[in-house]
């Protein structure tokens, strides 16, 4: 697939600069810049520009100013009238799933749900909130329309708000 990627540089997701994701790991200066992150960041920015089509998610906790490490996320696809669970992932130290939610053959057009278990996340953090909290299970529903383009889904959430968007 990699060769196929390189043959189509005009397509958004195949820009050669996207190889920086892999190249960055080889450059000591970049690695060093990522090390002394403040308390809010588990690591430096991760660049996805130019990588192959995929769906990736990044969850950030605006209450603590940190990656939402440990957040449980149920990822489902709309099948008929209901969402069918594909798998459950836990946000890693950077607030992402270790693997893309969808990639390669699994990256199919359709309607998907990313369900955030923010109630148990903030309970584990010891946040003092009403019972039940304003936000418990937050469903973020997105549509993959064009599988030639990747979708990055950043989600910022706190106990009283959330924002999501098409990222990069």
């Amino acid at each position: 697939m990699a060769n196929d990627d390189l043959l189509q540089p005009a397509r958004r997701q195949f820009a050669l600069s996207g190889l920086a994701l892999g190249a960055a790991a080889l450059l000591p200066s970049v690695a060093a810049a990522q090390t002394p992150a403040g308390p809010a960041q588990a690591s430096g920015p991760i660049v996805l520009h130019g990588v192959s089509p995929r769906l990736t998610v990044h969850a950030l906790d605006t209450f603590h100013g940190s990656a939402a490490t440990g957040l449980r996320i149920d990822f489902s696809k709309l099948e008929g009238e209901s969402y069918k669970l594909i798998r459950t992932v836990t946000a890693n130290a950077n607030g992402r799933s270790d693997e893309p939610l969808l990639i390669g053959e699994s990256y199919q057009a359709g309607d998907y749900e990313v369900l955030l278990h923010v109630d148990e996340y903030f309970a584990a953090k010891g946040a003092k909130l009403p019972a039940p909290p304003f936000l418990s299970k937050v469903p973020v529903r997105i549509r993959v329309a064009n599988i030639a383009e990747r979708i990055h889904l950043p989600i910022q959430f706190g106990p009283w708000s959330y924002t999501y968007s098409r990222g990069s």
Partner: protein
Amino acid sequence: MTGITTHVLDITTGRPLSGLQIELYDVATEPPTLLNKTRTNPDGRTDTPILPAASARTGQFELRFHVGDHFKAADGLSDVVPVRFAIFDAAQHYHVPMLCSPWFFSTYRGS
């Protein structure tokens, strides 16, 4: 004031989003129970509270914003945006706005 109100703003124009279909469901039931279905007025609000004060009660609710029908963007990120939240104190007012574009959605407990 008690109950639930909302306000929809289009961040691509900086204006209220008028004519957007919104539904309110009770999601404590299976399947969810439709409580109200309406459209936003020229100010981006509903003419009457989507859950009137007389019906205020604790529970699990979900607003659904039909943004796809409005924006009609082929690559729009979401079609129907659900916002699921709890009323934990029926004596309080729950204002739940939606700031949106075809690729950005933000909600919060407002006032």
